[in-house]
């Protein structure tokens, strides 16, 4: 999606003021492209109207993969390749020895779900070693909250609206190309 619109950045010095300013902006039809905060602000994703993360679904699928791997592993090692007499019960079947494998099944399920989930998270957010910081203003890592708002045409109304809602600093982004990189992080 090409951003033909112009972008204005507004800085806030309080998370409550930031949260309260989102509703009037969205009611007026402005698109908030991104919000940078020094710490996670509870309820921000909800206020911005973001879709819920689909990470839970991937975690479930990864868990199932881990479970299948663990079943195959125990079946091959303990039953096929080198049949074991488990707990004095030489039934030599996977199912009858299943209680002995439960810890492995559990651990592998958790291991796959957790590790693959972390990598999925990094990939989806475009985080890899050596990646240039996407943060346009270093103050948002300290005590400021920054909002990027798209607009078209005259910016006077938007500026006024932001001022009324407690923005402490308002800037127009001259070159929108700098922010093309942010598109990757918009997907969630």
């Amino acid at each position: 999606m090409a951003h033909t619109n112009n972008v204005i950045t507004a800085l806030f010095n309080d998370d409550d003021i930031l949260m309260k300013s989102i509703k009037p902006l969205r009611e007026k039809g402005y698109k908030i492209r991104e919000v940078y905060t020094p710490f996670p602000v509870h309820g921000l994703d909800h206020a911005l109207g973001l879709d819920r993360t689909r990470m839970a679904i991937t975690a479930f699928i990864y868990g199932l993969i881990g479970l299948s791997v663990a079943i195959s592993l125990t079946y091959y090692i303990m039953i096929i390749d080198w049949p074991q007499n488990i707990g004095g019960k030489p039934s030599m079947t996977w199912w009858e020895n299943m209680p002995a494998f439960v810890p492995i099944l559990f651990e592998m399920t958790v291991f796959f779900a957790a590790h693959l989930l972390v990598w999925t998270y990094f990939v989806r957010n475009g985080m890899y070693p050596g990646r240039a910081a996407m943060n346009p203003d270093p103050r948002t890592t300290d005590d400021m909250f920054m909002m990027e708002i798209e607009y078209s045409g005259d910016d006077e109304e938007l500026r006024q609206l932001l001022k009324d809602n407690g923005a402490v600093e308002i800037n127009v982004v001259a070159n929108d190309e700098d922010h093309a990189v942010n598109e990757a992080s918009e997907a969630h």
Partner: protein
Amino acid sequence: MFQFPAKLKTLSYILIAIGVAALLYGFFAGGGHEVADHGDHGHGHDNRPWASLLINNFFFLGISLGALFFLAIQYAANVGWSAGLLRILEAISGFLPVAGIIMMVIVLAGMFHMNHLYHWTAEGIMDPESPYYDDIIAGKQAYLNPAFFIIRSLIYILGWIWAAATLRKLSMQGDADASITWYNKSIKVSAIFLVFFAVTSSMAAWDWIMSIDTHWFSTLFGWYVFAGIFVSAVTTTALISIYLKNNGYLEWLNENHIHDLGKFMFAFSIFWTYLWFSQYMLIWYSNIPEEVTYYMPRFEEYKSIFITMLIMNFLFPVTIIMSRDAKRNFGFLATIGVVLILGHWLNIYIMVSPGTVGLEWHIGFTEIGLFLGYIGLFILVVFKRLAKAPLRIANHPMNKESEYFSI
């Protein structure tokens, strides 16, 4: 203020009548299901109404005790989200005196040989001269003797009732008194109770349930029982909350609170399975006769109940309420709740029955009727108590936080 609906009251009286009928039927009509005499099978037949009473009483005692534990945790940990649910927990823990008295009746009857639920009370079992002498059981005499058993039971029950009554009294002050003195006192009482509960919940499980299978012991049995009663208690809380919400009460309660209760139901179902499996796997693996005696009858004579109980208490919650949406839907969560309640009733059933009724087990009118009776009694006691006070403590310092709670 909650008004106890007349229809529900009538229903509870009808259920109590069914329960009384079931108990009388169990005692005087011979338990219904006549099994041919297999020789010396002990007291299975005579025990059935008593076992049914113990199962049902312990199940509902567990629910009220679990609710009291949950209530104490809310105070001790300064919990905010649940501030609007505390009165429900108080009301459920109000069932403790009723269940406690009946528990004492069962215990005293057992000690005075009016029932034979506890094998170690059998005549002559600790007497080396007697033909019924049992060396292993005699070795446990220092702990398992009638006098100490009665004293212990009394201490547990009185301690729990004290905590329930004190927390109730303090929260009633919270309706009138705008200061938070009552809240700070509640924290202290809760902390004391939690320490007491940590010891007594395990010991009560050993005494009332584990000592039925006197030869056998398990070191994590107390926590296994605790996990079961906690799931039942949280589920009951969720069911009552949903009932009240559907009837237009609890306007501060929304799907976020239900979601949290659902998380507790889910998490503690897993915790229950973890403990159940930890106990099962070690015994299965080591395959020592003195240990496997516990699972042999359960797996051979009670197989259907054993498997059904595992499916209801583990597979069902794991697969059905893992997702967020399932936990946020009132009707859905209520349905799951009913299954969990029945599943944990079966869990208690399978703990008690093999050692008391043995082969002569049968889930019939004696068991189901009494279960319905207990539901009636529980509804009557809990809802009466719920109607006595506003559904939210007026001056709870975290009412606002509870209202704004969202996840």
